[in-house]
């Protein structure tokens, strides 16, 4: 627990973005690991094994959360958010500035990840969950649809909203200065 607790907590927090939920997920993980300790074959490291259990707990949470919400409402909300970026003839209200992140530079930059974290927090929970599974965990689209109980079209709308919003948020809060 002392050895892996913080690692698991940060892993969960990065995905769930809520300290209380992350603590619960870690607790459930340790309890499940204790229960199933005879199943630990020692093929992977203890940390990898625990992280695998934690991932399942996190996806379970996403699934439960997705079930509580009407997907139609969600889709409308995402579509409205997408519409809000454009005028009536489909021109963006705010023209994108010309910037490009340098992967090596931003990777080591704590402030950049903090800005990204804040931008992710501004997405509605289900949209963020879908986006995290797709773009951070790189799950296949069909697996995410199964996890969340949504159609491919729903998924595309949610991902598109998340991408547009994140792009804009990073531009406003991070790349604005570098582009000027």
């Amino acid at each position, binding site marked *: *627990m002392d050895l892996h607790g913080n690692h698991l907590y*940060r892993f969960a927090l990065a995905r769930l973005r809520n300290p209380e939920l992350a603590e619960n997920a870690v607790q459930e993980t*340790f309890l499940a690991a204790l229960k199933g300790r005879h199943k630990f074959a020692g093929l992977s490291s203890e940390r990898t094994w625990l992280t695998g259990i934690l991932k399942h707990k996190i996806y379970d949470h996403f699934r439960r959360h997705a079930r509580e919400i009407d997907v139609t409402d969600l889709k409308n909300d995402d579509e409205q958010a997408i519409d809000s970026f454009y005028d009536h003839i489909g021109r963006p209200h705010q023209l994108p*500035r010309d910037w490009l992140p340098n992967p090596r530079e931003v990777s080591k930059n*704590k402030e950049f990840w903090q800005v990204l974290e804040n931008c992710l927090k501004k997405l509605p929970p289900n949209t963020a969950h879908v986006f995290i599974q797709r*773009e951070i965990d790189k799950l296949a689209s069909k697996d995410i649809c199964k996890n969340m109980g949504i159609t*491919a079209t729903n998924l595309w709308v949610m991902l*598109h909203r998340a*991408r547009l919003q994140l792009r804009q948020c990073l531009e406003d809060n991070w790349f604005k200065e570098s582009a000027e």
Partner: protein
Amino acid sequence: MKEPQIISCKIAAKLMSQSFERQLSAQEQLKLKAHLAVCNTCRACYRQLKALRNILPRYIKAVLTIDPPIELSLSPQAKMRIKQALRTQLI
């Protein structure tokens, strides 16, 4: 072949996003290409969306390894609670 109809930035962005999820049809590809050929801002936007896709998988690693970590560690109270739960289960 008929000249592709010029699509709006809104439709172009939707196609950019979907190109990450599925194979666009030949007609969709043509429409997107034709739009990008005449729209600087969408070209910049497409480059940015692609670049963000490459950076995002580093997020978790960054959160886990940047020193000092971005996020806090488990609070002492949470640690105590989890240990207590584990002990209860052992009994």
